[in-house]
């Protein structure tokens, strides 16, 4: 196996006495798309910032490109692109100027910066907005500017902290497509997300984080098969009545989760379970069979849904 691009051992981030990242191990291989999945406050951003060499490691070891962030931060940062969780754009400057000043931070010459800017604006489909002030863009357009900007230095490693939060479904799909293309060109992607579908679409491998710890690791598919069933039957019985039929439901499903508004029944064959329940006079107001997703994995691992 190739030398890992990112290697963390017992990595810890503390803010005063508060432990935000609590001893995690990660290996990211070159060319891989690696994801951090987890609820608010899990420690995803804290980890990303340590990898981005903008937050000192509190304990444990971390290397990026085989280099130590404490000694070689400048070199490491010159080879990575960062899309922060909150856009850090200059609202007063135009889209184009935002890219050009960022290129200057990397000491990319003006002419080259102009050329890359126009290619990248094309790539994120914002060419017509090149001369507009960033202030006048929509949230999703700003996000795309951030992504274009992170690519200006042609980074080997791209760190994306919730890249698609705030985007409409269509913009999200465009972005996934763009990220997929970058991956095809050999870039290594590390991203955090709350979205299960995003993790499934983009990540070769991911870790599920909760309260600073890694609670599971693997490919989306292997996590689903390990921690969930093939299908999920979602049933609604109406307000406060979800628990009434719990005994009958538990008898037929492999596992049942009671959410405030619905019951989730985990089973290989959802339709089969639903038919059996109907035979036994358990008739929900509505029922839906779907494929199991990382959301289910998360629920299983943490006992909480991601929306909490």
């Amino acid at each position, binding site marked *: 196996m190739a030398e890992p691009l990112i290697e963390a051992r017992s990595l810890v981030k503390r803010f005063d006495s508060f432990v935000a990242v609590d001893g995690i191990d990660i290996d990211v291989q070159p060319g891989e798309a690696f994801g951090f999945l987890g609820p608010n406050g899990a420690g995803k951003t804290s980890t990303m910032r340590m990898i981005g060499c903008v937050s000192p490691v509190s304990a444990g070891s971390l290397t990026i490109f085989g280099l130590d962030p404490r000694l070689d931060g400048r070199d490491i940062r010159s080879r990575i692109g960062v899309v922060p969780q909150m856009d850090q754009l*200059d609202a007063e400057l135009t889209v184009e100027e935002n890219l050009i*000043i960022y290129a200057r931070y990397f*000491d990319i010459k003006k002419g080259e910066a102009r050329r890359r800017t126009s290619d990248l604006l094309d790539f994120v489909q914002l060419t017509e907005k090149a001369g507009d002030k960033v202030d006048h863009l929509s949230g999703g357009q700003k996000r795309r500017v951030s992504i274009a900007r992170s690519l200006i230095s042609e980074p080997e490693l791209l760190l994306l902290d919730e890249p698609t939060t705030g985007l409409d479904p269509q913009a999200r799909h465009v972005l996934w497509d763009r990220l997929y293309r970058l991956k095809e060109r050999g870039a290594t992607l590390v991203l955090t997300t709350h979205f299960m579908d995003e993790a499934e679409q983009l990540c070769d491998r991911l870790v599920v984080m909760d309260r600073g710890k890694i609670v599971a690791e693997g490919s989306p598919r292997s996590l689903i098969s390990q921690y969930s069933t093939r299908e999920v039957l979602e049933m609604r019985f109406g307000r406060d009545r979800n628990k009434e039929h719990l005994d009958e439901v538990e008898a037929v499903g492999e596992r049942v989760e009671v959410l405030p508004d619905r019951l989730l029944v985990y089973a290989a064959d959802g339709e089969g379970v639903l038919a059996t329940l109907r035979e036994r006079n358990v008739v929900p107001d509505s029922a839906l069979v779907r494929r199991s997703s990382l959301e289910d994995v998360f629920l299983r691992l943490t006992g909480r849904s991601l929306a909490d």
Partner: protein
Amino acid sequence: MGTPAAFRVAYRDLLIYRRVWKANLAGALFQPLMYLLGIGLGVGALVDKAPDSASALGGVSYLAFYASAIMATTSMFTAGQEALWPMMDGFRWSNAYRAMISTPLEPTDVVTGVAVYFACKTAVGATGVAMALTLFDDTRSWGLVAAVPVAVLTGLAFALPLTAWTSTRDSDRSFPPIMRFILIPMFLFGGVFFPIEQLPDWLEPVAWAAPLWHGVELCRGIILDSIGPAKATLHLLVLIGFAGGGWVVCTQTFRRTLRP
């Protein structure tokens, strides 16, 4: 060799400034003219009538006395203001400085780059004031050219310590009091409108400790050719001390705020 890191940082601030520099220069020309017409000529006409005023003012007209200080006060207000809200923007609102340090730039580069920008901006202001002062016989001299860098240094002596403060703040709540209780009192009691010898004895040392007085005295001395090398050096060292000390503190506070 590429461009020094600090200039790459300043490039961003100057790009924003480019939109407004003409207005800034016009303001720097116009505002002192207003003050000079109102206070320099108006108040001056009264002051110069008093029998011992010339000796209290060091042998010059009130207009010359007051006008030569405006180089320093304009820098103080420009740099002071620049170090408050726009810096807050870089740290907390647009987060431009956070964006910078995720590139090869280090927090120290950001400090130096910001200082370069302050210097450029105060230089435009000081040049505007110098141009205005050429309109008056009492202040027209080659000393105006030499006073421009002193005014820039005076600006840095305010801007860098204030920037260090801003970089540790979560909000701009403390800024209006800084203007009201630090900058304005220095403006009023820092030897701008009257020599500090006129202050009550206990207040005089307070003026010595304020960077503005040193900037004012040095600018005045150079423009009116009324200062000896020993005093000039002393004022210069104090200003360098404030600016340099501010820079050192900034390198620490920037690091702490930008890299938690």
